[in-house]
């Protein structure tokens, strides 16, 4: 190995980057060559000087805190969009969808109110009907009671036909097929 080739390899030799054979060649040359040995020595001192006096920063905890915070934000699951967000996220169909939704809301409200009114009228009608039926039933009970206790046939005649001379109690046919004349 000549001095020029050795000089070019000295840094790699110093850094342990030469192959085994090449490293041995350099080592052998350095043992017999004083100038190359001095060159190597000065490179070694330079490397040591830099290593000794190089300034090293300490890692501040805030760096990891920022990294962690950033990563946590990146990994947080996105909130599922609500109806309003869906509408605002899709501008091409948001306008008609809003109109349809509003119309459905109005229709539903009208339908509900209409049903309530019908229900209220039916309840009122049924109440009146039940009351009338109760009055009729009470009148009928009174009439039957009077008939059973007085035997007055005239009471069987409806008050509406009381003045009618052609209407008699006997004129009302008894349609009961199971009742005989004796009974």
């Amino acid at each position, binding site marked *: 190995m000549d001095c020029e080739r050795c000089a070019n390899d000295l840094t790699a030799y110093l850094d342990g980057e030469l192959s085994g054979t090449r490293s041995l060649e350099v080592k052998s040359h350095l043992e017999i060559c004083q100038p190359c040995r001095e060159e190597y020595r000065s490179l070694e001192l330079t490397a040591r000087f830099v290593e*000794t006096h190089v300034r090293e920063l300490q890692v501040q905890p805030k760096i990891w805190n920022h990294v962690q915070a950033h990563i946590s934000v990146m990994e947080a699951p996105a909130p599922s969009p609500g109806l309003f967000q869906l509408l605002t996220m899709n501008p091409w169909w948001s306008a008609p969808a809003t109109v349809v939704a509003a119309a459905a809301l109005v229709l539903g409200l009208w339908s509900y109110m209409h049903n309530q009114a019908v229900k209220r009228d039916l309840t009122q009608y049924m109440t009146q009907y039940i009351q009338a039926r109760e009055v009729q039933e009470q009148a009928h009970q009174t009439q039957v009671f009077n008939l059973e206790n007085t035997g007055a046939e005239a009471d069987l005649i409806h008050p509406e036909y009381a003045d009618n001379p052609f209407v008699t109690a006997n004129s009302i046919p008894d349609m009961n097929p199971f009742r005989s004349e004796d009974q």
Partner: protein
Amino acid sequence: MAKRNSKPGGVTVDPAALVRWIKKAKRGDLGAYQKIYDLFARKVLNFIYRMVNSADEAEDLTQETFIAVYQKLESLKDNSKFEPWLFRIARNFVYQKYRTRAPATVSVDALDDDGQPATQLIDARKNPDEAFQAQELENVVQDVINSLPEKYREVFVLSAIRRLSYLEIAEIVGRSLPSVKTDIHRARLEVRKLVKDYLKV
């Protein structure tokens, strides 16, 4: 000459454990990613710091680098190539931010509002004279690094300070191994020329 196996920063890299953490981190395990961060944050921070010569900007870019690394982790095919891949991303951030201008030349010893150095540096020396002398020498080294051409500066930092292998450096800077080897050698010769006077002392 024995090959240097230890890496600066006092942290030993266990390749098998690192691969396990990477696999977990790919599945979203933030605890595993924090272990990876603890292992490499100081290396990345100081690599960027030497490239931009500003502690604040180095911290910002380190933060951005580790966020991007987490986002892109899934794209890392060979988990054993994590370190060069990480430094390549850090380097990209440096060049994205500083391609259009020279690295900052302001001193990192600028004082903050309380009159204390704004940058917290590692300095275990207690003697004021020693500390002053050491700080002077640190400034010398920092100035020497900053004075190197960009092409030499990054390979010098990665080899002489970060102690990455030449193959890893070639992957990071995207150049051939012989080209990187030549540039590292030239950078060392340049540095030697600049610190020559201090070596005599």
